[in-house]
């Protein structure tokens, strides 16, 4: 353990205020803040700096530590979520324990969100620096524990992204479990006919990879399987996977005898319902595994009833076994790659396009199957109403994309997909007249523009302006498209034989469940959020979890593969190191204070506290503890010392922030993962809100003890905001339910004491919801404006005893 005494020596603090070019200095008077910092207790050095994170900036800190014997450092710059590791490292290099460093976030939480209020922003920056200086004086050095990493990976989703990641890792020598929900791997790419921009046959380039997965000694392929539970943390995940029975054993030779005799005939999902399949089937010819599968939903044999044995009799190899049971597998892995892909938009809600009402209006995915040689029509372009080759077709772009009515984002692949499809038609049936109705053609990638030119060369007509309506001509089943050619300012009426809706891509239906399993964040669009959009684009915010393919955002095959290889590399780096360190933010019991009440153990989401009533001891299992601090907040006797987020440290931050003008301020407690990150996001997006809020960071909202809130009110704070992840999204399982309980208890107490309870607000906001945080702060201004001195005094008194 760390020598407590060393932390007791007189603090000698160095403070560095960063200009960040003009990012901070453009709004905050940095010189003034620097001058102010030099007046604070224990501050030996206070300097400003153009770019503190640069080599020179770091060197300056290192030199100062050595020359001036500094034993505490504060950097006031960007978010600690961005550069805390950088500066901690610099401290370490200068021989200072990295836990003796603290940051004040005067960019994301200050200069960027108060662009037009220099005076108030400067005032706020001073406050934040003051709080950081107060906290840093109380920080204690610490040494991090190391935990070993299991050298195995779980890949969820067997589309092209999942396949590529699994192969890369397996080839590197790691063991991989590949879990796929469907009966075969392959994903969307297996459904597509050709791929842009090279016009390769999709299944021809995919099938060899699929079969590699099937045969790789390092890959365990689990199809028909779903993740059911995830526990543990980076390096040491324990995952439960439910493997549903296929009712066909590995002895199957894929001879198709069983399918031929099966009496059940239903639409085939793989061919988006355009063809049929039997109850015992293989999704498509190249499926991996090739083993057939029984769809128990439609098979005549229900639970315990054997009504049909046709397939059993037909199978010479006796591979069919209706006694197979679902299995739950428990996997132990060190890293996880999420590659669950995406779904396509369902256009039936757009009534004016008549999808499902008119037979000859189809989606682009249906078209892929139609034109595929392995598809229901044997690759012949036919229209559904009369199976004739259409003389003219129209593509409608942005269906469900870039729209308030569908999804607001661009789906990235549909423009190129349409160009590809139009060329495919032209290749085989050059006389077909093709119209493409669009608002913008986005052909940004390598080789994309060439393809666009080729389509134009072949006579495809591109018309700017989306049809307002598609109507069917009742006799011919042809379709009328009416719209405006917005480049010509003319209305058009075009008659075609078939319409193809270029539907967008949306987050896969499982995204929500996956998000919960790994406490990931999703953007407003529903795609998984990366740890940093530029610099850590395949890392999930949760350690040890990586993202690949359309699960992260809509993208094409090339980008999916690139990202998958990147994710595999990132996971590989972790596993090659063999161990990870865990932050020294776990609690230390203080036996003198402990009354062995056991409350801490009750609220710990990880069962990391063992209460030994007999010996009057409380023990924290360090490897299991995630450091949320909920126990510390619950303990009434100050018997848990929450390292790096101690009661004293947080109290002193509150004191510093409420020293002047307290009644005009909002003291906000934000959890690191959602609310604090959301406030960072507000900064990055330059969302403006009133400058009278002061944010204190904790790892989890569960750490926010009632006494912090009461203390803020007793110091005369105008209002208090407690903000954490949405219920169910907590990064510490369900610790934020404790937050909710605590706040609700306090509201009751405030009511009882006659204190206006709207002065305490609770907000759930994700890392993507900067807007939400800003609007809450705006909303709270009303309470602040209406606040009388008398009310402030009343609360001050009511809570002062605590």
């Amino acid at each position, binding site marked *: 353990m760390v020598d407590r005494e060393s932390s007791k020596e007189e603090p000698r603090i160095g403070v560095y205020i960063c200009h960040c070019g003009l990012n901070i200095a453009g709004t905050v008077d940095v010189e003034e803040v620097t001058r102010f910092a030099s007046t604070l207790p224990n501050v030996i050095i206070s300097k400003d700096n153009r770019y503190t994170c640069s080599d020179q900036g770091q060197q300056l800190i290192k030199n100062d530590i050595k020359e001036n014997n500094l034993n505490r450092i504060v950097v006031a710059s960007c978010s600690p979520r961005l550069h805390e590791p950088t500066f901690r490292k610099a401290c370490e290099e200068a021989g200072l324990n990295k836990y003796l460093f603290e940051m004040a976030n005067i960019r994301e939480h200050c200069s960027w969100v108060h662009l037009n209020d220099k005076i108030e922003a400067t005032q706020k920056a001073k406050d934040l620096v003051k709080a950081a200086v107060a906290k840093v004086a109380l920080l204690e050095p610490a040494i991090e524990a190391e935990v070993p990493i299991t050298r195995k990976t779980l890949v969820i989703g067997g589309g092209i992204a999942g396949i590529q990641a699994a192969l890369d890792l397996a080839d590197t020598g790691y063991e991989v479990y590949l879990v796929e929900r469907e009966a075969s791997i392959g994903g969307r790419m297996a459904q597509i006919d050709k791929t842009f921009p090279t016009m390769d046959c999709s299944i021809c380039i995919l099938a060899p990879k699929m079969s590699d997965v099937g045969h790789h000694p390092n890959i365990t392929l689990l199809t028909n399987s779903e993740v059911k539970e995830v526990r543990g943390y980076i390096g040491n995940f324990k995952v439960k996977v439910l493997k549903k029975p296929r009712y066909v054993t590995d002895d199957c030779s894929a001879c198709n005898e069983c399918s031929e005799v099966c009496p059940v005939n239903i639409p085939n999902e793989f061919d988006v319902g355009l063809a049929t399949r039997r109850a015992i089937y293989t999704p498509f010819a190249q499926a991996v595994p090739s083993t057939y599968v029984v769809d128990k939903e439609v098979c005549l044999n229900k639970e315990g009833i054997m009504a049909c044995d046709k397939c059993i009799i037909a199978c010479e190899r006796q591979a069919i076994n209706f006694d197979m049971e679902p299995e739950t597998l428990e996997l132990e892995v060190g890293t996880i790659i999420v590659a669950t892909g995406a779904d396509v938009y369902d256009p*039936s*809600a*757009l*009534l*004016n396009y008549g999808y499902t009402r008119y037979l000859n209006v189809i989606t682009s995915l249906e078209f892929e199957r139609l034109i595929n040689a392995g598809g229901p029509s044997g690759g012949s372009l036919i229209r559904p109403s009369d199976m004739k080759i259409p003389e003219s077709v129209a593509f409608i772009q*942005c269906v469900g994309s*870039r*729209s*308030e*009515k*569908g999804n607001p984002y661009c789906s990235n692949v549909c423009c190129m997909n349409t160009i590809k499809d139009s060329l495919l038609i032209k290749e085989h049936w050059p006389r077909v007249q093709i119209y493409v109705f669009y*608002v*913008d053609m986005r052909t940004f990638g390598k080789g994309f523009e060439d393809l666009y030119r080729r389509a134009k060369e072949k006579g495809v007509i591109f018309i*700017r*302006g*989306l*049809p*307002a*309506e598609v*109507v069917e*001509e*009742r006799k011919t089943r042809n379709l*009328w498209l*009416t*719209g*405006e*050619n*917005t480049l010509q*300012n*003319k*209305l058009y*009426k075009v008659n075609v034989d078939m319409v193809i809706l270029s539907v967008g891509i949306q987050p896969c239906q499982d995204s929500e469940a996956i998000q919960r399993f790994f406490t990931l964040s999703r953007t407003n669009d529903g795609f998984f959020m990366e740890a940093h959009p530029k610099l850590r684009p395949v890392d999930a915010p949760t350690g040890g979890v990586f993202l690949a393919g359309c699960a992260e955002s809509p993208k094409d095959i090339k980008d999916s593969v690139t990202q998958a290889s990147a994710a595999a590399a990132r996971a590989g780096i972790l596993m090659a190191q063999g161990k990870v360190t865990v932050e020294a933010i776990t609690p230390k019991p203080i036996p003198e204070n402990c009354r062995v009440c056991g409350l801490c153990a009750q609220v710990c989401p990880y069962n990391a506290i063992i209460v030994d009533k007999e010996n009057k001891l409380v023990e924290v299992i360090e490897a299991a503890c995630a450091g949320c601090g909920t126990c510390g907040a619950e303990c009434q006797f100050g018997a848990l010392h929450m390292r790096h987020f101690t009661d004293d440290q947080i109290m002193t931050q509150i004191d510093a922030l409420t020293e002047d003008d307290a009644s005009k301020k909002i003291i906000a407690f934000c959890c690191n993962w959602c609310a604090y990150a959301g406030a960072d996001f507000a900064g990055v997006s330059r969302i403006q809100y009133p400058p009278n809020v002061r944010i204190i960071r904790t790892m989890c909202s569960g750490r926010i003890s009632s006494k912090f809130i009461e203390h803020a009110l007793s110091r005369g704070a105008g209002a208090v905001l407690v903000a954490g992840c949405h219920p169910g999204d907590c990064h510490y399982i369900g610790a934020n339910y404790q937050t909710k309980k605590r706040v609700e208890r306090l509201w009751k107490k405030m009511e009882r004491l006659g204190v206006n309870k709207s002065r305490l607000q609770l907000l759930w906001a994700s890392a993507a919801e900067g807007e939400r945080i800003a609007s809450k702060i705006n909303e709270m201004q009303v309470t602040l404006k209406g606040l009388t001195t008398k009310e402030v005094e009343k609360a001050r008194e009511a809570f002062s005893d605590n």
Partner: protein
Amino acid sequence: MRLESTLIPKKIRESAKYCHECGICTASCPMAELLFTQYNPRSLLQAIFIDPEKMLVEDSLWLCAWCYKCFNRCPQGLKPPEIFQLLKTKAVKRGLFKGFKEAVKKIRNSIPLPVICLYTCFHPERAEMDSKLFAEALEELNTRRKLKKRKKTAIHKEKVAVIGSGPAGLTAAFDLAEMGYPVTMFEALNEAGGMLRKGMPEYRLPRKALRDEIRYLKTLGVKIKTKTRVGKDVSFNDLWRNEFKALFIAVGAHKSRELGIEGEGLEGVVDALDFLWKVNMKREVNLGYKVGVVGGGNVAIDAARIALHQGAKEVMILYRRSREEMPANPWEIIEAEKEGVSIEFLVVPKKIMGQKGRITGVECFKTQLGEPDETGRRRPIPVPGSEFFLEFDTIIVAIGEIAETTFLPAEVETYKGKILVDPINMKTSMKGVFAGGDAVTGPATVIEAILAGKKAAFSIDQYLTETKNREDTAW
């Protein structure tokens, strides 16, 4: 720069920046189709966002007919009519009337039934237009009649029958008469005008304006047979076989749907259209103190407002979905609420309760919205156990109207109370028979009916010319 002009509130300005100029609004807009290139909501919107100040004198602002078809389809959910309204109000405040005056000229030259449209579609009063200027505009629109006032000699011999005298029928009759066809119009009620006469409240359309318009139509030579219900007073086949070479069905949607719940026969449960009709006929209606209106369309809104005007003290609309799904014109919902109509969302009547044969109130379910149904709106699902009671003296039922089509021969295909037509040329499945207006679309707007009438007239002319040519060559 100008983009940040304060003429348009920030929220609207922000949302409107996402207009991708897809052109769906313009292509959906009946006014754009009626006025060809003279009106284009898409480019108007763009121009407004580039320089709103300059657009204050723009005539196009005044040419929007408030049908909200653009809003229903705009991928960005923009409400062009309300954005135009902001500028119109500003223009009036600043005394800039050039745009309005120009617009009136355009309306005079291109829109059939211009006076009716000024009242029922263009609504200059919503922008607080000066009453003197309004009167001047009416004068201007009436000059058209004076200019053209002469009986057209029929240059064609093929007679055309128009069934129904609402805006669709009136328009088709106008246009056909002007082309020189002898037109006879059949109307079941005792006076022509269709829903303009029957359902439209007087405050919205003064009856004098309607009569003037119809009188003018007669001067063009159109014969109007009122109190003649096709199917009762004269059969469809008679018309078809005997005199007429082409028929235009514009019977509107006048058959009210029924709630289909217990207690519908009680005294005090009234049909919305009957109610409006009675009020318009100046017959007495006794509503009592508290009135409930079931439904969420324009008829429900009008009925609720009229109920207030008729002296009801409390009027509550019961709608089974939420505000977003409400099919009524958004602006009129706001106006109704301003007048004091309250709207209860997500409720559906379960049973109408009564005593001694008279209604005492309604038992309702709360609803939840489920998956979208075939109309694309989310289906309301009654929540079991959520029943509650609301006291009412009168219940007005306005849950949708469909066309009365029983008089039509089987050759004219219909679907769920709507006549099926080819929307491009308004042809029904029966040769020589055309249809348009609410009978085809379900309850919609005057301007859409006018457009349908216009398209039908054009198409009927084409059809008759073709038939004649064929006959000529056959001889």
